[in-house]
Every structure is written in structure tokens, then in C-alpha cells.
């Protein structure tokens, strides 16, 4: 009886149930839903990166579209121009987006508040202009075609997993989402993560305890850039065509918006936000302008009335409900 009680209250049960739903639902329903859920997973990965930076370290960056773009283009260019396979290009794109994050982070993190946000935005616009204008390298506005799908994985009993169907790509990207989710969970609960939270809550106080806030912020920025780069490379592999459009600065804004609606600084926020804000408009087949209009209005309403986001408000409510009988 006690074990069942423990199992029921353990958060991991809920997460495993969620994973099971994510595994089964596309298999059963299939079709267009798989495409939507794949996009949701890619954005959820990018949101986890922004969540580390904004939700836990308190640094708002609206320029992470730059790292989405760097990851995607690094992956695509290395795979196409050098003819390397999926995995070498993928690893290289992760390293390159990490280096880019590190190099951009050093000057940007010297600034605070609005100044920091604007510099991240400026970098995103610069990167996007380069993607558009350096036609010999990036193919300009037409984009870059032919990014590879993952290499087939041979199984010990002779079968081979291929990544040609949408469903297999969905599972491939979901696999990365789960790994990055677990890594970010472990990170947040480590000493480094606690330092991030301390910086978010009071940077001066953290510094007064002898913690080097600059290097910690740089670590947070670089990790979030790497995660965004992974999302970009996965998108490139999924879509096989990379265009500057997929890294326009509005994409960076959208990631932040998904996170705020889902709940910044919560574990579930980066999953809930993209799921609701991408899946619902897609299923209703909204006109892009109307979608953007509603998106803006919903975002404003959330900031004014529910600043904790969906996940934040739900956990706040459940903790109040749970705490009442225990007090008796």
C-alpha cells in the first residue's frame, strides 16, 4: 500500500506516463499529427535551453535564433560541403554552436538588463543578415538543400533502423528531447544549477559569497546555446532544407514566448508552452496573421495575469491543495 502511495505521488511516475503518451499517441493517430509533434519536440528542446538561461539564471535572451541558425547551418554545411556523415556533422555542429555561444557570451554578459537583451538581439540580426547575404556559403535566401537524415542504425539481430519515415524522425527527435530534459533536470539539481538560481534571485548577494557569477553566467549561456544548436541541427536534419527564415529573430522571440506561456523556471514549462502554442493553431489551421495576432494577445494576457505560466500556476495550485489536508 505504501509503495503504491509513493508511486502515485512520485513526480517520475507522471513523467513516465507522459513519455508513454508521447510514444503511443503518434503511433495510434499518425498522419499530420506526427509532423506537428516533431516540430513541438524541436521547439521544446530549444525552450529547455532558454529555460536554463532565462528561467533559472534570470538572463533573458531573445537572440537564440542565432544559435538555432548556427547549429542548422553548421550541420548542413559540414554534411554537404565536406561530405561527412550525419554523426560527425552533428557533433561538429554542437561544438560550433557551443563555441559561438561562448564567444558571443563573453561581451554580451558584461552587460545587464535591457542592454544584455538588446545585444543578444543585435547578434541574432547580424547572424541572420550573414545567412541572407553570404550567398556563396549559405545559399542566401533560397537556403541550403540536402541536409542528411540520420544514418541507419544496425541492430545486433540483423535488422536496421532507418530514418526515412516521419514517424522514425519523430522518435529520433523525441529521444534527444528526453536526453536533454534529463540532463537539464540533473543540471538544475546540481551545485551548478543551484548557483544559477542564486544568480537569478540576487546576483550581488551571490557574488558577495565568493561565487564567480560571470563564469557561471557564461556556462549557462554556453549550455543554452549548445541546446539551441542541437535543436537547429535536428530541425535541419528533419526538414532537409535550411533557410534563413528558420533562424529569423522572430523565432528567438517565439521560443521565449512559448517558455513564458508554459512557465519559465519550471520543468514542465518548456514542454507545455510549445505543445499548446504550436499544436492548437496547427490543428485549427489558422491563418499565420491571425495566429500571430492571437499569439501576441495571449502573451500579453499571460504576462499581466499569469506571469508564472501554465506549469507555474498549476504547480502553485496543486501545492496549495496538497498542503491543506497535511496541515490538519
Amino acid at each position, binding site marked *: 500500500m505504501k509503495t503504491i502511495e509513493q508511486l502515485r505521488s512520485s513526480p517520475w511516475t507522471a513523467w513516465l506516463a507522459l513519455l508513454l503518451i508521447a510514444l503511443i499517441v503518434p503511433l495510434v493517430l499518425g498522419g499530420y499529427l506526427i509532423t506537428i509533434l516533431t516540430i513541438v519536440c524541436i521547439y521544446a528542446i530549444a525552450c529547455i535551453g532558454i529555460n536554463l538561461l532565462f528561467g533559472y539564471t534570470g538572463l533573458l535572451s*531573445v537572440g537564440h535564433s542565432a544559435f538555432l541558425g548556427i547549429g542548422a547551418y553548421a550541420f548542413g554545411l559540414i554534411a554537404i560541403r565536406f561530405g561527412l556523415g550525419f554523426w560527425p556533422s552533428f557533433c561538429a555542429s554542437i561544438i560550433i554552436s557551443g563555441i559561438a555561444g561562448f564567444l558571443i557570451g563573453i561581451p554580451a554578459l558584461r*552587460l545587464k538588463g535591457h542592454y544584455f*537583451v538588446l545585444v543578444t538581439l*543585435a547578434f541574432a540580426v547580424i547572424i541572420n543578415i550573414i545567412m541572407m547575404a553570404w550567398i556563396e556559403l549559405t545559399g542566401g535566401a533560397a537556403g541550403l538543400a540536402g541536409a542528411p537524415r540520420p544514418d541507419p542504425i544496425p541492430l545486433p539481430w540483423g535488422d536496421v533502423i532507418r530514418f526515412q519515415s516521419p514517424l522514425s524522425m519523430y522518435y529520433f527527435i523525441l529521444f534527444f528531447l528526453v536526453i536533454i530534459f534529463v540532463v537539464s533536470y540533473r543540471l538544475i539539481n546540481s551545485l551548478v544549477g543551484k548557483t544559477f538560481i542564486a544568480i537569478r534571485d540576487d546576483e550581488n548577494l551571490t557574488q558577495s559569497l565568493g561565487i564567480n557569477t560571470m563564469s557561471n553566467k557564461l556556462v549557462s549561456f554556453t549550455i543554452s546555446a549548445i541546446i539551441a544548436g542541437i535543436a537547429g541541427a535536428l530541425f535541419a536534419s528533419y526538414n532537409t532544407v535550411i533557410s534563413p527564415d528558420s533562424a529569423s529573430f522572430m523565432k528567438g*522571440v517565439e521560443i*521565449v514566448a512559448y517558455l513564458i506561456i508554459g512557465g519559465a523556471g519550471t520543468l514542465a514549462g518548456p514542454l507545455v508552452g510549445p505543445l499548446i502554442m504550436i499544436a492548437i493553431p496547427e490543428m485549427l489551421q489558422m491563418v499565420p496573421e491571425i495566429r500571430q*495576432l492571437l499569439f501576441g494577445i495571449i502573451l*500579453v494576457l499571460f*504576462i*499581466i495575469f499569469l506571469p508564472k505560466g501554465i506549469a507555474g500556476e498549476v504547480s502553485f495550485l496543486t501545492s496549495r491543495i496538497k498542503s491543506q489536508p497535511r496541515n490538519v
Partner: protein
Amino acid sequence: MASNEQDLARPPLFINKTVDTVFSVIEFGQYLINGISQGCLYCLLASGLTLMLGILGVPNFAHGNLYMLGAYIAFYVVAFFNMSYWLSIVIAAIILGVLGLIIYRLIFYPMRNGPHANLFVAAIALLMILESAALLWFGGETKWLILPYSNDVIRFGGMSLGVQRLIIILATLMVMLGLELFIKKTTVGAALEATAQNREGAMLCGIKVTQIAAMAFAIGTALAGVAGVLIAPAVMILPSMGLGPLLVAFSAVIVGGMGSIRGAVVGAFILALVESLTSGYISATYSLVFVFAAMILMLLIRPSGLFGKEL
């Protein structure tokens, strides 16, 4: 057509320079003139932005969209209602001032005590709302506002300046002079400046800070509207036309120091010259990259900007 004028104001995309090309004073002078007329536009936008930042702490990311609305107002007033272009300046200032009050009351007033990130995201949400509303309302196709003198160009010593560009320069001088007089000579203006310098101190002196903030927001949006009307005859009118000027004007505010009108004016001209000279001598495609590079360099050398308070 208006496109002629634009070609003159905007240097060609790539200028083929051979090794034996000597430095041309006329070419340089032309880029300076282009920079100054473009700087006037940035000046109107940046001074509104810096007022909002200094008094409310709002980084109004939708400023470019308010400027776009100003241009559409000019288009509809002149082309649809056959009214005078000069009247459209007043109409745009009034409509956008009122719109500014509504935006302030509905969006920025409720979150005035929240963290700065919220203000930023709300401003971006406002950008999304205004841009998509404009797309739905006005349509995505390009509109041209053609005035009787749209083709006219003043030439002197090999350099040229479109008449509309001259109007922009003169009108900006008048508006900025009016703003300066308003802030320095009237009581309300003094209250505005006091609030920007020290919010708590202003409250203690009995200044109604919320009203001053609403007024500052309305002045900023009205200035954006005026800028939009002024540029309307010289460019393509599109729902997305505001983004480029917004980014430069924002950089100008940072270069000048947030909250300082003088700084915004100086920053606007510095960046406009950077833009016109780099697009003339290096590449028009990358001119925004140079503008941002100048801004980032400035921030690293002097993080509080030219005229900003020491951090």
C-alpha cells in the same frame, strides 16, 4: 515616381571600386547628406524611445510599428480622403498619441512593478499584435504615397537631395526644437525631466508620476507617428517597414545613453552616418551589421552610453 527619389537617397548595392579611384569629395558629401536626412528620422524615433525608457523603463519594441502606422495614416489621409499632407502630420500625431495612451493603460501600466524581462516580452508581443493587425487590415502589398513634388530633387555641386528628404530635415528640426522648449520651458516638461532623473524624488515633490509616465508614452508614440508620416512619401509603405529603423533607433538610444534625449539625438546621427558611409563604401547589405558593431563596441567601451548616467 517615388522610387527615383529612393534610388538617390539610397546608394547602389555595390559600388565597384578600382584601385585608381581617387577619394571623391562629392561622393563623400552625398553620403553625408544621406546620413543626415536618415539621421533626422532616427532622431525622431530614438527620442521617443529614450523618453519611454527613461521614464517608464519600457523598451518599446513596437515603436517601429507605430512608425509604420503613421505612414499608413498619411497614405489614407492623402490618397483616400484627399486631405492635405500637412494635415496628416497632425492627424497621425493625435491618433498615435491616443493609441499610445491606450497601450500604456492596457499593457504597460499593469506590469509597471514587474521585472524588466516582462516589459521586454510585452513590448515584443505588442509588436506581433500591431504587425499582424496591420497585415490583416491594410494587406501585405506595397503602397506608394505620391505627392506633387515626389520627383523633385535639389542639386548643388554634384550632390542631390530629394525634396521630401529636405522636408524631413526641416520638420525634424522643428519638432525637436518644440520638444526641447516643451521640456525646458514648461512646468509639465520640468516634471517630465524630474521624473526621468529621479522617480522617487519627483513623487516626493508632488508630481503625479503615473500621469507623467502616460504623457511620456503618448509623446513617444506621437513622435513615432510623425516620423512615419514624414518618411511615407519617400519609401515603400509595408506592414514590416518599421523593423529596420527600429533596430537602428534602439541602437542610437543605447549609444547615446538610455533616458537622455540629447544622447539619443547624437546617437541617431552617429549611427545614421555609420549606416550611410558603410553602405556607400563597403556594402549596403551589411550596413546594419556595422551599425550593430558600432553599438556593441560603444557598450563595451562605455556601458552607460555617451550621455547616460554612470552605472
